[in-house]
């Protein structure tokens, strides 16, 4: 949930809508295992995984991409060599662990790439261009504005309560929930009140078309990636019609 704070200025610039499309494609094939176990679906999965690792690496997170790739390789190594030899509960534990890792990792990599190359501004501008109503974009914008505030607030309440012995093992653990959540909520509501007054004064919600300085728009890279995603779904349709295995 940590969006980039400054916009990405590398060579491979994508529109946020393209990034979302790509992440959803990776999710559809790798996470929810669209296409079942046909050979084509397997090939698509490998291709999408490779592309998402590549994008993460090219956009400047080489070390993170390498770490994730290592994790994926370790999972497959474990599946190949360890899984056939252990049974019982431990076997199930390894099985579930590997299954969850191999299923979630590709789309997690794509999501990571989406998050760190996109600023909140760009995402909201893109959603507005995609005609998402204000009922969704305004709360979303508020959420991005508010996340740091709430976490800072929570940390300070945490400190204050720790000092008064309201923490696990402090003798007042039962009051933990009440004494932390209530101040957080009341504080946030006060801040929200001021925020909404400020925003309404500046005309938020007055006109349906708001302008943005976020630089979004489709380019050659977008065309390439969209074509790739379309090809994945096209190949799946071919499997459905019996053209491909």
């Amino acid at each position, binding site marked *: *949930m940590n969006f980039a704070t400054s916009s990405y200025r590398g060579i491979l610039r994508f529109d946020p809508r393209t990034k*979302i499309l790509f*992440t*959803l494609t990776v*999710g559809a094939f790798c*996470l*929810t*295992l669209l296409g*079942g*176990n046909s050979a084509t679906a397997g090939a698509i999965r490998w291709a999408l995984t490779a592309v998402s690792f590549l994008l993460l690496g090219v956009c400047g997170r080489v070390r993170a991409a390498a770490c994730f790739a290592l994790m994926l390789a370790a999972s497959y190594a474990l*599946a*190949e060599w360890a*899984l*056939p*030899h*252990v*049974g019982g509960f431990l*076997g199930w534990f390894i*099985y*579930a662990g*590997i*299954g*969850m890792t191999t299923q*979630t990792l590709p*789309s*997690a990599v794509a*999501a990571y790439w*989406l*998050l760190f190359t996109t600023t909140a501004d760009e995402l909201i501008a893109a959603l507005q261009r995609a005609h998402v109503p*204000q*009922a*969704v974009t*305004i*709360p*979303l*914008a*508020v*959420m991005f504005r*508010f*996340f740091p505030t*709430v*976490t800072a607030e929570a940390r300070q309440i945490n400190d204050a309560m720790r000092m008064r012995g309201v923490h696990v093992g402090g003798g007042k653990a039962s009051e933990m*929930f009440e004494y932390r*959540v*209530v101040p*957080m*909520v*009341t504080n*946030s509501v006060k*801040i*929200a009140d001021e*925020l*909404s007054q400020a925003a*309404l004064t500046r005309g938020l*919600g007055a006109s349906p*078309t708001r*302008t943005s*300085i976020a*630089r979004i*728009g489709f380019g050659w890279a977008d065309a390439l990636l969209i074509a790739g995603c379309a090809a994945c779904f096209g190949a799946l349709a071919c499997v459905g019609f019996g053209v491909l295995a």
Partner: protein
Amino acid sequence: MTNSTTPSAATQATSATPEQPAKPGRLGTRDYIFIGVYTVLYFVLICVAAMIANLIPGGQLFMGLACGILGGVPYMLVLMKSRNFGAVTIVGVLLALIMGVIHGNWYTIVTAVVAGVAADLIARAGGYRKLGLNIVSAGVFNLWNLGLFLPFYIGRNDYLAAMAAKKGAEWADGMANLFPTWMLPVIVLMGVAGGLIGAWIAKLLMRKHFQRAGLV
């Protein structure tokens, strides 16, 4: 890259709808801002719940329960603050966007939107004022996080199954899906129970703190 379409005077006149006092039965800009704030609170609290659940081995099963208990307060505040149809639906759509679209999980998109609309309809049946219906709607809403688990119940991984089959056919059959099938109803039940408990706690806190402070 500024937007060059300057709205004409006519469209401006029609589009400048009165926003400040939200009309009864409609959500205004003010409500949208509050929904955003409560969704952040909800999000922070369920993150805490997920962290606690993930620290315990096997605790992931109880994630729905923990999320429901901790998320009850912001959820009930959303209901009580706006008392109009749409507020809970928007929270559902926001969760679908953040947990589903950004992470590529189609199941979460579906469950979050469906749970949001269903919870909203249930609460609306009581005019957002009947405590019993509000608590039930919190239980239903909490089912949105089912989508986070569904890929591992529905998805069947033949590669892993083949690897496990080398150990023994009947052992591998037991693990055809990543988790046993009976676990799904248990998780649904725990999710609903978590939502109900959370809403009940929220009700107690509401009376003790928030109503006195004039928040709702």
